């Protein structure tokens, strides 16, 4: 989409595009639930982001490998079964390796199944493209998602308790409780969206003026 696709291959361009210019949360506003619910602590946000990325990549790989065998009428239920199988895998792994985080994330790991990004990528990309490109596409989406979760987790944990990854950084910090509760999550996401759109608009106008000067 943006003009820099000359030297990079098409697949790589999709990868970058999914991280930034069509970021799953900022631009598409998909999968917002978990991005708000799990970002009270930076560690939880990181685990959630990586879990989503993992499920995205492996389910895309599998769907892309068997894409010619899936009858069109039942493809949605096949996607769903594949995705939920990998979500169960992630849930079991987390319960064993990181029991505390798993408990804190509660039902939100299970809710990866209904994260619209997974169905979205399967339906829009993996069903039509070869495995390599599908995984790259999903990796971009997953990393874009993780990026937003990390930004929100960073802001919320720092503002609410003056710590990062549970390590206290700001001593004597008056905890800003608003960042910890639901309304604060909405306001912080909205402010991050403002900054994102400002950056994007700036970049776009820069590209436009470089290509062909337009009077405004």
């Amino acid at each position, binding site marked *: 989409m943006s003009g820099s696709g000359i030297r990079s291959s098409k697949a790589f361009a999709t990868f970058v595009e999914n991280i930034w210019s069509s970021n799953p949360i900022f631009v598409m506003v998909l999968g917002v639930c*978990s991005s708000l619910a799990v970002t009270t602590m930076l560690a939880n946000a990181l685990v959630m982001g990586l879990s989503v990325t993992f499920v995205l990549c492996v389910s895309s790989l599998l769907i892309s490998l068997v894409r010619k065998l899936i009858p069109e009428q039942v493809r949605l239920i096949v996607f769903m079964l594949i995705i939920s199988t990998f979500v169960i895998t992630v849930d079991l792994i987390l319960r064993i390796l990181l029991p505390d985080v798993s408990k804190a994330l509660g039902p939100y790991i*299970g809710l990866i199944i209904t994260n619209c990004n997974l169905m979205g990528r399967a339906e829009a990309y993996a069903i039509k493209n070869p495995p390599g490109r599908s995984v790259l596409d999903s990796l971009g989406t997953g990393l874009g998602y993780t990026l937003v979760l990390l930004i929100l987790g960073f802001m919320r944990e720092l503002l609410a308790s003056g710590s990062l990854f549970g390590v206290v950084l700001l001593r004597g910090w008056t905890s800003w409780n608003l960042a910890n509760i639901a309304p604060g999550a909405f306001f912080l996401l909205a402010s991050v*969206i403002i900054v994102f759109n*400002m950056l994007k608009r700036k970049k776009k106008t820069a590209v436009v003026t470089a290509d062909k000067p337009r009077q405004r």
Partner: protein
Amino acid sequence: MSLVLIVLASAITNNIALTYFLGMCPFIAISKSLRGAAGMGLAVTVVVVLTTVANYLAYYLILVPLRIEFLAFVVFITIIAGIVQMLEILVERYLPSLYGIFGIFLPLITVNCVILAVSLFMILREYSFWGTVAYSFGSGFGWMIAITAMAGLRKHLAFSAPVKNLGDAGITIVLAGLMALAFLGFQGMLA
């Protein structure tokens, strides 16, 4: 009495959209018109009660006795998809007037996180059978209140000029934050 408390708590003080952030995608995408929002809310309420009760039965009568609780995710999502599909066919066939109001939203509902989340919470919180009915109804109804109120608020946006960089989704998120603040006021009401 405790059933009434469960309904009120899940609909108002612990509103599923505004405190647990569930069902945000349709909450932002479909709250442009009041009619659409109400239809979607109604569809979610009906489906969430049916599917949660079915999942309750499947979990405690089949999965627990067989000790295969870890399969819950796959079983739940399959049951949800099946019920939604069946409901769509039945409503279209026998209640065409109702189909116009909320039937068109049914295909979207399988991936609405409210539906799956209520089933998962039902297990985590170990509700009884009637508790499950009350909780699922309260959650669906609360989500309907939230999305209808949001549609009402968004109508007034036509007369105001929010920050340009916020975009359509951004201003909806700010409104949701304000609504969540307002709903915080209900807390303590049921303590």
